[in-house]
């Protein structure tokens, strides 16, 4: 029988929740990296024991951690457990935490600047890794979405990182601006049918696509409309909160924008709104059902000023028609006095049948549905604020 591992990143450490395929009884392991912010953990599809984690602190900066045994033990990839921590010459090995924007002559992309809160230009400054996306085929290759927004790649299991500078340097970078949460690259989607094609999303810049493995990029934001920026239809500057796709149909993208739930049927070239009858179309995460490409999940949040569910009722909304028609999923979720938020990386689905759906809240609950969203149970209730949730399946 399949086993399930849910990887939870929180404000104060990482937790690993384990169950069998029934997804009813759960064991909770953690905290790992206690006291540190864990923005994201994600395992390799081809080797589920390989898990990458982004460990961060406002005081001490960025640490990359890796597990090769499913989260039982961790090490910084540059300094494997049990090995000398320096070279014979005494030189530190800790390259795995080093994220340096590529301004080399060979890249052709100078550091440039981006738009700052006061309207001036501001140099790129690395702050943290928001999202780690392992390759679909190679456990040693992993992509990192970082703040200030850029994309890095490691091909040696996280030991060293190199910027895919064509994204930051393709031309619109000087128009990107941080949102209230910072200027982070938070979504990375790899086209399962063509691994050279990837989609990323940045707050507050928008969506971008590469067709050549990350060398060249173009903005794909036509159809987005954002009244909170000077030109609502601008090429970049949109605060995209999350994008999602179904593996069988990678030309269809779904987006939760700052406001508006959007859909594209042509790989992001054009977008149209599918908010339909949602009670509010503000929110952060969006997910697609594992087996039904037109079934989409969002968690509506009251507004950009009120980051909690409307009427204090925590509801996952599901559309089975690719948007516009939405139904609330409430069974097992608090329907009064609930004022938590669900952040952009804090939802996921497994591919068992029926499809499992998971999300974590800023109140520290992690909810699971083993029946496609029909009913929910809290796996845990009192973790620190949840930043990210990912699920792994293995035999």
């Amino acid at each position, binding site marked *: 029988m399949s086993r399930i591992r849910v990887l939870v990143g929180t404000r104060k450490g990482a937790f690993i929740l384990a169950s069998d395929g029934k997804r009813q009884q759960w064991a909770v392991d953690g905290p790992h990296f*206690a*006291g*540190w912010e864990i923005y994201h953990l994600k395992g390799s599809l081809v080797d589920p024991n390989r898990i990458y984690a982004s460990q961060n*602190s*406002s*005081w*001490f*900066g*960025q*640490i990359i951690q890796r597990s090769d045994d499913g989260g039982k033990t961790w090490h*910084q990839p*540059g*300094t494997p457990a049990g090995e000398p*921590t*320096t070279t014979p010459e*005494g*030189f*530190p*090995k*800790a390259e795995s*935490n*080093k994220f*340096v924007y590529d301004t080399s002559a060979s890249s052709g992309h100078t550091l440039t600047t981006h738009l700052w809160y006061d309207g001036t230009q501001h140099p790129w400054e*690395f702050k943290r890794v928001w999202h780690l996306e392992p390759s679909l085929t190679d456990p040693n290759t992993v992509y990192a979405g970082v703040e200030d927004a850029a994309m890095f790649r490691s091909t040696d299991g996280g030991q060293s990182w190199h910027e895919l500078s064509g994204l930051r340097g393709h031309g619109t970078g000087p128009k990107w601006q941080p949102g209230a949460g910072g200027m982070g690259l938070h979504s990375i989607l790899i086209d399962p049918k063509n691994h050279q094609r990837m989609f990323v999303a940045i707050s507050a810049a928008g969506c971008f696509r590469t067709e050549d493995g990350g060398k060249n990029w173009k903005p794909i934001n036509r159809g987005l409309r954002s009244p909170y920026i000077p030109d609502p239809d601008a090429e970049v500057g949109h605060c995209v909160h999350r994008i999602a796709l179904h593996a069988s149909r990678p030309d269809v993208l779904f987006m939760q924008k700052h406001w508006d739930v959007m859909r594209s049927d042509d790989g992001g070239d054009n977008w149209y709104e599918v908010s339909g009858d949602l009670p509010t179309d503000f929110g952060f995460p969006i997910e697609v059902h594992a087996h039904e490409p037109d079934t989409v999940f969002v968690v509506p949040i009251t507004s950009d000023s009120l980051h909690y569910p409307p009427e204090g009722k925590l509801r996952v909304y599901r559309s089975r028609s690719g948007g516009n028609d939405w139904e609330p999923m409430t069974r097992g979720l608090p329907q009064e006095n609930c004022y938590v938020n669900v952040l952009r990386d804090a939802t996921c689905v497994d591919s068992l049948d029926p499809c499992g759906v998971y999300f974590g809240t800023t109140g520290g609950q992690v909810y699971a549905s083993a029946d496609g969203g029909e009913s929910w149970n809290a796996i845990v209730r009192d973790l620190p604020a949840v930043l990210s949730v990912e699920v792994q399946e293995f035999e």
Partner: protein
Amino acid sequence: MIRVVIPYHLKMLAKVSGEIELDVASPATLRSVLDALEAKHPMLCGTIRDQTTGKRRPMIRFFACEEDWSNESPDKPLPEKIAGGAEPLLVVGAIAGG
């Protein structure tokens, strides 16, 4: 021998408890002490000083002999009591939040 005290989270990261003792050539400076600290515990690279600029991270402070050395030149010789091991150099996470 120089004694260095680092914050709790960095002790966990470096897998040490208590003070760290370092051999540093004279004259000892903040730069030479931190170089020695990072060489002995490379997992601390980037946690005290930015890996690109080499500058102190904004929320890290250095205290020596009850004086704030955070904004001193990294090449200024440390006080004799620090250099001789009579007093530890304190690497401190700034108080923040409520």
